[in-house]
């Protein structure tokens, strides 16, 4: 288990992380969420022991995190980059050796992973000859091929096409069953919603909300309705019982106050516009995220 207590990191002119506490348990994906500049990357760097926290403790499997844990950590940084002029297999071998694999093991593991991700034919190519997506795959391999106990993925899906995203998603899910501690940092709420069991939402270095994703949804879930229609729906903005109205190109989302049920609402509007689709929805994480961040004082 990874246990972070009262983590604070101050820089010269700012507080990047302000008194954060969270636990990450194996077998679940922990989502570290927040808008750009919220303090996600700083939190990750402290957990990785790349930078020292101003205060607070980080306990990994019962012991403070130190350099001994290097080989048990896998890290995929948000900004990607590899030695562009070097060969794929050489780069993989180097990073494996840095994770304490022998050179024989390193090559063997690298080859296994190249095969797993269907990019064996790039083995002897230079990194710069590969497409961006394939470069990302190589970097993903460097984060996981030493079978780390703690895996930290910062925006793992950016730059991948949908097919590759699916492939990576399945890989990450397979790590869950093997009992790794996984932290996924992202501002893509759709991804977080699909993968994470627990989340910590931060903004300006402060915790906004945290806990089990299902609980949070229930907590924020109200009477939410998805509506497809034709006709002018402007009147809904000020309609009785409507707390929030959000119109998209093909549909609209309506949040109702507690004193009106969805079916009652349907009754009232049914002769005002032509309804094509009507369903009750849970709030998306995206919506929770936006609502919560907007509420935050800047």
């Amino acid at each position, binding site marked *: 288990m990874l246990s972070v207590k009262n983590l604070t990191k101050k820089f010269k002119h700012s507080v990047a992380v302000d008194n954060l506490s969270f636990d990450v348990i194996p077998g679940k994906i922990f989502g570290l969420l927040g808008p750009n500049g919220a303090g996600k990357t700083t939190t990750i760097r402290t957990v990785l022991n790349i930078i020292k926290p101003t205060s607070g403790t980080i306990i990994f499997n019962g012991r403070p995190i130190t350099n001994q844990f290097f080989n048990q950590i896998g890290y995929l940084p948000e900004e990607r980059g590899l030695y562009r002029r070097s060969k794929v297999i050489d780069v993989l071998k180097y990073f494996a050796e840095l994770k*304490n694999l022998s050179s024989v093991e390193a090559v063997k593991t690298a080859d296994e992973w190249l095969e797993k991700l269907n990019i064996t034919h790039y083995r002897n190519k230079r990194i710069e000859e590969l497409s961006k997506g394939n470069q990302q795959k190589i970097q993903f391999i460097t984060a996981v091929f030493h079978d780390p106990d703690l895996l930290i993925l910062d925006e793992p899906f950016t730059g991948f096409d949908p097919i590759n995203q699916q492939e990576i998603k399945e890989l990450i899910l397979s790590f869950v069953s093997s009992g790794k501690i996984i932290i996924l940092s992202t501002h893509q709420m759709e991804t977080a919603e699909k993968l994470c069991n627990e989340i910590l939402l931060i903004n300006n270095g402060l915790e906004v909300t945290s806990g089990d994703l299902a609980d949070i949804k229930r907590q924020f879930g109200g009477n939410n309705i998805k509506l497809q229609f034709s006709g002018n729906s402007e009147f809904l903005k000020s309609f009785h019982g409507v707390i929030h109205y959000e119109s998209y190109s093909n549909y609209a989302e309506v949040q109702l106050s507690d004193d009106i049920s969805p079916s009652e609402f349907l009754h009232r509007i049914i002769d005002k516009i032509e309804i094509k689709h009507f369903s009750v929805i849970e709030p998306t994480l995206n919506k929770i995220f936006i609502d919560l961040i907007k509420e935050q004082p800047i």
Partner: protein
Amino acid sequence: MKKILAIAKWEFIEKVKTKTFIISLILTPIIIIGFSIVPTLLSTKEDARTKAIGVLDITGFYFDNVRKALEEYKLEDGQPNYIVINLIKDNDELNDNKTNADKNILENKIEGYLFINIPSPDSLVAEYRSRSIGNFRDVKRFEEVLNKIRIREELLNSGIDPGLISSLQKNIQLKQIRIEESGKEGKQDFLTVFFSSFIFIILLMMMVIYSGQMLVRSLIEEKSNKLIEVLISSCTPDELLTGKILGLSSLGLTQISIWALIGLGLVGGAVVPPEMFENILLMLLYFVLGFVFYTTLFVGIGSIVTTEQEAQQITTYLSLTLMLPIVIAMPAIQNPDVLILKVFSYIPLTIPSVMLLRVNIAPVPVIDLLITVSIMLISIYIMIKLSAKIFRIGILSYGGRPTIKEIIGWIKSG
């Protein structure tokens, strides 16, 4: 330790494979060989063929004597060095004679000619006219010959015994011999000192610039694409630093070994005089100390700068300090005790190159050797400590270049 070796191996192999390395490996010796062989050729090489030299002697007195004297000079194979031709055609006017003679030069019939004239009874004018000026040895010989003839003639006229004159006119050639500590005689002349020192200084400078830039460039690359974060989450900054310095030093040593082999080959082939390598061990010592010192210095710098242009500027300026001895070489060779030389032999930045020069000029007292080597070792130690501190923080600081004040803060905080 295992990781340090992995890093060193990576830095070494990835850089050995680059085109710039291979080019510098080949190009540097070519430049150096040019530096060392050309002066040797110029200063000692005898003419390979006999030269036809004309004499246009208006006085009619000098021609025979000049011919006799010049034909004394022999080529290596025993052939005469000069064939002396009389260009006077009795019927012609002076100007026609000159025109004809000049034409002979342009037509390559003669190398050049001596024009000897007496415009008034007590003045003698001599010219050497040729297609190119600058053959110092020929001109010096002609001067000597003409002077000897003139002096001999005047002495004879005043009734001095011809035998005495001959013995008076024997040249004394001054040989320069340097006495070394052990009491044996050194055989170096100015050029050998100059060039053997300079070869090493230039080698050192090229290697420092080259490997310093490589180091800084790779640091900037790792910083800009955040690879450094992956590295630092796999090993400590100190391991990374040590690995990089180790890898780069091995690269430097590989380079110098290959060059040394080439150098030995040249000595073996008698292309380069062996005296050039007389102080090779001391020179290698200062060379290696200098290289390691500058490499550690560049690690610190590399973790501060953010763009390649910046890096290039700083590495070039720093390496120029190595060129300092070339500026102070002349006064230093004339007087090895000159103060400036002593001063520069106590500054870490200049010790390597100044000492490379000093060991070749005059025997360096053992105490000076001990002091300079100690200064270098201590500076390297301090530099590693400083660079490591700057490195630890600098590699993770993005954005603009930090101010001097900030860097001092880093050093203190480490």
